[in-house]
């Protein structure tokens, strides 16, 4: 899933109270859109399943409750998996790994990407060119191939997976934050901070970073959905968490052989992954629309 990089061109108001108000206005505007609300409901549901699921699960993830690949019964409400374990219990346990790894990967991608993006946007031409050209090279790998290459060499280690997926985000995040930074650096308050003799790093942190949060916020949902996709795909391909772990992507792979007689073992994790990625994308879409709307009304002022 590659995403067309948006060129971010929006006028950001002065820092301080105005900035705070803009953030609140943006969230309000986004919340008034149906798509944002649906997206939030989806995410709350999936996160709820992942967080509280393990406490609600009727069985343990490794307990055998019946014959393999049987449909729903009163003992196993979603039937049994390919080894005869309870699908419902494994689904309730299986969300944490995916969501935690996706959150970690997104955080890594955002932090590293924003650092290099603001650095590039707030640097002299040569640094800017070097940083952006380097990322063009990283972009030369399809994301899943890059992650597979890392996994092929390091083995299915969750930490390496999170870092590898995070790195695939860096070029896109850097591009968005660089665009936003270019709009901010021309501002008087940045010039004022420079005149005061603040260091470039301090200016990046104190003056630029708070003023690019709005465009970054809209991008965040897309990054998260993308992380979930790749991490679930990796598990599905057998290179993520290893058996007997309960993990949505892995469950899909393991129970695929029984899809004709016991589709629930495949469809339930599929459904939850879909809810997570669609939800995050809907929120991102709502925020983007709200940002554009805010820009329009600000121009009208």
């Amino acid at each position, binding site marked *: 899933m590659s995403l067309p990089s948006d060129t971010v061109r929006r006028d950001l108001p002065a820092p301080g109270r105005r900035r705070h108000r803009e953030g609140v206005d943006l969230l309000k505007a986004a919340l008034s859109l149906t798509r944002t609300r649906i997206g939030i409901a989806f995410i709350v549901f999936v996160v709820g399943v992942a967080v509280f699921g393990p406490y609600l699960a009727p069985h343990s993830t490794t307990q055998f409750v019946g014959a393999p690949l049987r449909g729903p019964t009163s003992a196993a409400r979603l039937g049994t998996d390919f080894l005869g374990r309870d699908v419902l219990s494994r689904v309730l346990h299986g969300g944490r790994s995916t969501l935690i790894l996706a959150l970690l990967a997104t955080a890594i991608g955002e932090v590293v990407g924003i650092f290099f993006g603001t650095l590039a946007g707030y640097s002299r031409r040569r640094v800017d060119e070097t940083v952006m050209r380097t990322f063009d090279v990283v972009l030369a790998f399809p994301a899943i191939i890059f992650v597979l290459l890392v996994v092929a060499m390091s083995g299915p280690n969750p930490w390496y997976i999170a870092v590898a997926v995070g790195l695939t985000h860096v070029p896109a995040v850097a591009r968005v934050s660089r665009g936003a930074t270019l709009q901010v650096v021309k501002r008087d308050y940045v010039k004022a901070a420079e005149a005061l003799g603040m260091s470039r790093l301090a200016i990046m942190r104190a003056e630029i970073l708070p003023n690019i949060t709005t465009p970054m916020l809209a991008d965040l949902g897309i990054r998260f959905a993308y992380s979930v996709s790749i991490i679930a795909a990796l598990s599905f391909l057998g290179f993520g968490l290893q058996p007997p772990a309960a993990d949505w992507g892995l469950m899909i792979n393991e129970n695929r052989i029984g899809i004709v007689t016991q589709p629930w073992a495949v469809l339930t994790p599929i459904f939850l992954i879909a809810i997570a990625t669609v939800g995050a994308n*809907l929120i991102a879409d709502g925020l983007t629309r709200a940002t554009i709307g805010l820009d329009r009304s600000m121009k009208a002022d």
Partner: protein
Amino acid sequence: MILTRTIALRLVLGVVTLFVVSVLIFVATQALPGNAARAILGNTATPQKVAELESQLGLNRPVESQYLAWISHVLSGNLGHSFVGMNQPVTQVIGQPLFNSFVLVLLTALVSVPISIGVGVYAAVKRDSLADRVITGGTVALAALPEFVIGILLIVLLATQVFHLLPPVARPQAGVPFYRQLRELVLPVLTLTLAVFPYISRMMRASTIEILESDYVAMARLKGLREQVVIWRHAVPNAIAPAVQGTAMQLAWLAGGIVAVEYLFAYPGIGSQLLGAITERDIPQIQAITLILAAVYVLLNLTADVITILVNPLLRTGLR
């Protein structure tokens, strides 16, 4: 003059990118200490065995000379020998899978591009109508779904549960030309089509809306031309140009997107081959396949850039 220079610059940049990519792949797979030999022998191997294999593979030579030997072989068409099986040349092992994947991607392009463009134009013409809203909403949701999720939903819908129209796996028989086994290819092609469709149609919708608001479309309407003629003769040809870059980028995405889809349908393409090579720790194959996929990806993105330069008069004359 400026045009040739801009394009030449892009080409040089593409070559440089490929060079760096090849170094990255090489370093990741071979030069990192202990990696290759340990990967082949597994974690239980004695240090002695590891050292033995390292010298056998030439891993104890300096990294630069290892890389130079590898890349000069690659450039002369020798991708090394597979570690597993009959020690065949990698070029032989991956030839057929590469062709199979090419067929898959080609069919996907032939199906997805016209459909996406058609739907994009339709949504633009019917802008803000119920149909447009359903299409735009649907593309947001569809764009969010991982491709293997789309694939499984299609299997459940069309192969195993709801309808029993198509085979759930795509294993073309060797020796039978693929056009005789198109039925097998319907589901994987449909899956990949639905994966690239949202982006292309969304871009097409945006660029068509922009063109429909332009002066010359207003002019064409004022001349009294039929709306169909205005749309398909005047608007669409001009709206396609900006969408071409996005289309090429989506086709480039397929270089990675095919992996999970081929695995899902057990299709013997290059993606399945890569997964097999990773499981078998066959380093020469992993190197060759990742290099080929990255090269395809870079070339298609390069094509997208060049097309953008060619169709954009401002870029073409360097007036930007």
